[in-house]
């Protein structure tokens, strides 16, 4: 299988604290890969350095064979990597439609942007119903949908999702995970960061377990789901 994203020995420091201690992982085209771990394990840091929001202090991020650690964050989107950030971070004082259009900021093909918008409305009918509403007035689950729709507007090859289930009611969690699977079926590769390890492992092909800045385990999601130590530490059994 073709490797889309290949991270080698990535390390990130916050001052003197090393948040990522040289982690390596890869994501193949078409996969759903989960990155699970507790609070503070370095999951968000990993995604932020992939998107260029924080600079890596060492290692390599190879995306479609191109080295990204020196690339400015605003240039990464147009390479086909979009992120749904933790806490959704929708533009609260802008309308749903404005948020979605900003997702297509790097695209110039007006007609195709309209097509993508239609597709997104089809996937998230609720966003179309509320397109002129301020994003800040949406419920948490709707904001999560908006954040996902916004990321999809850039027409990404890979989408990085940071804690999409955080703070959502169980019904919405199921809905969001269903959408992640649907998006993946349509050909978008997914790197999923989750504290809800059980859910993440259920939909992922493979997974990595992150603990205080290091990857301590990796493998097929199904085998991690049955792993005794993982069950104890992350699945609450």
């Amino acid at each position, binding site marked *: 299988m073709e490797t889309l994203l290949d991270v080698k020995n990535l390390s990130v420091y916050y001052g003197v604290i090393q948040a990522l201690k040289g982690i390596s992982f890869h994501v193949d085209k078409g996969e759903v890969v989960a990155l699970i771990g507790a609070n503070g394990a370095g999951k968000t840091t990993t995604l932020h350095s992939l998107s260029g929001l924080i600079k890596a202090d060492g290692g390599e991020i190879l995306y479609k064979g191109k080295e990204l650690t020196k690339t400015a964050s605003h240039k990464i989107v147009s390479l086909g990597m979009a992120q749904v*950030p933790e806490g959704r971070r929708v533009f609260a004082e*802008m309308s749903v439609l404005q948020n979605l259009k900003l997702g297509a900021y790097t695209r110039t093909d007006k007609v195709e942007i309209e097509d993508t918008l239609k597709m997104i409305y089809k996937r998230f009918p609720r966003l179309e119903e509320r397109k002129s509403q301020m994003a800040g007035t949406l419920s948490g689950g709707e904001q999560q949908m908006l954040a996902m729709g916004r*990321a999809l507007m850039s027409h990404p090859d890979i989408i990085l999702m940071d804690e999409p289930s955080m703070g959502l009611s169980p019904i919405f969690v199921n809905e969001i995970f269903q959408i992640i699977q649907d998006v993946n079926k349509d050909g978008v590769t997914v790197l999923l960061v989750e504290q809800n390890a059980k859910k993440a492992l259920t939909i992922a092909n493979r997974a990595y377990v992150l603990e205080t800045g290091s990857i301590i385990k990796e493998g097929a999601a199904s085998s991690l789901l049955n792993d005794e130590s993982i069950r104890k530490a992350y699945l609450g059994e």
Partner: protein
Amino acid sequence: MSFLTYLISGLSLGSIYAIIALGYTMVYGIAKMLNFAHGDFIMVGCYIIFSVTGALSGNSAIGIIAAIVLCTLLGITTEFVAYRPLRGAASPLAVLITAIGVSYFLENVALLIFGADIKSFSSVIKWEGFTLADGQLRIQGVTIVTILVSVVVLVVLQLFIKKTKQGQAMLAASEDKGAAALMGINVNRTIMLTFAIGSALAAIAGALLCSAYPSLSPYTGAMPGIKAFVAAVLGGIGSIPGAMIGGLMLGIIEILSKTYISSQLSDAIVFGILVIVLLVKPTGILGKVIQEKV
């Protein structure tokens, strides 16, 4: 009838404050910094008009264009040289103190080049205006032009922000720079554009201010700058319509209190209003309550 005259002149002064306040508020909205040197850009603009118009024997149109272009470049340069390196500094005070430094720097450069003596600025608006109601109500040309210009500026700015991609990028970056970068927005370039617009507005405000109050010194911009800051806070800093409302209110209050209360006390009244607003509604008239992230 005289009340109406004062009201209109307050509206005109307020329009100038509003244009300056727009620059303050836009820069604050996106860069989250108070550019205390903003008022001095007005002074720089006035000196450019003064010099260019003088050199061209009275052609003020070219003077105004030169002022807008050069102030824009000055704004971009200041942002790049003085403010950008401090973005993300540990304390937000660093950039605030730098802005005050830039303010003193500009004032002293002007002092060095033009000297401390007050230059008499000849109005860029030659139109005399008109009288109404059998000569009882006289409205000066500069008053009308000032009010019209401020309305045009507000409308153009609102259209720019609502209708253009760059404007939307500006809004997005003012809300959340990280999320904006994730959309592919070049946040640094967006901030630079904001400074450019704010500085161009300062040049326009300068042309109007010195046309209405034709004396020019290195400190010309300082007081209007501070008052425009008060106007921006009054209207709700970060809000464009707020800056407009705040500016107009401040201008009217200043002129009316000069007329009916005391010309010495008018500044005290203006700043007293700032204190009251900060006590009663710290976010200003149209300011939003910033919600804590859950």
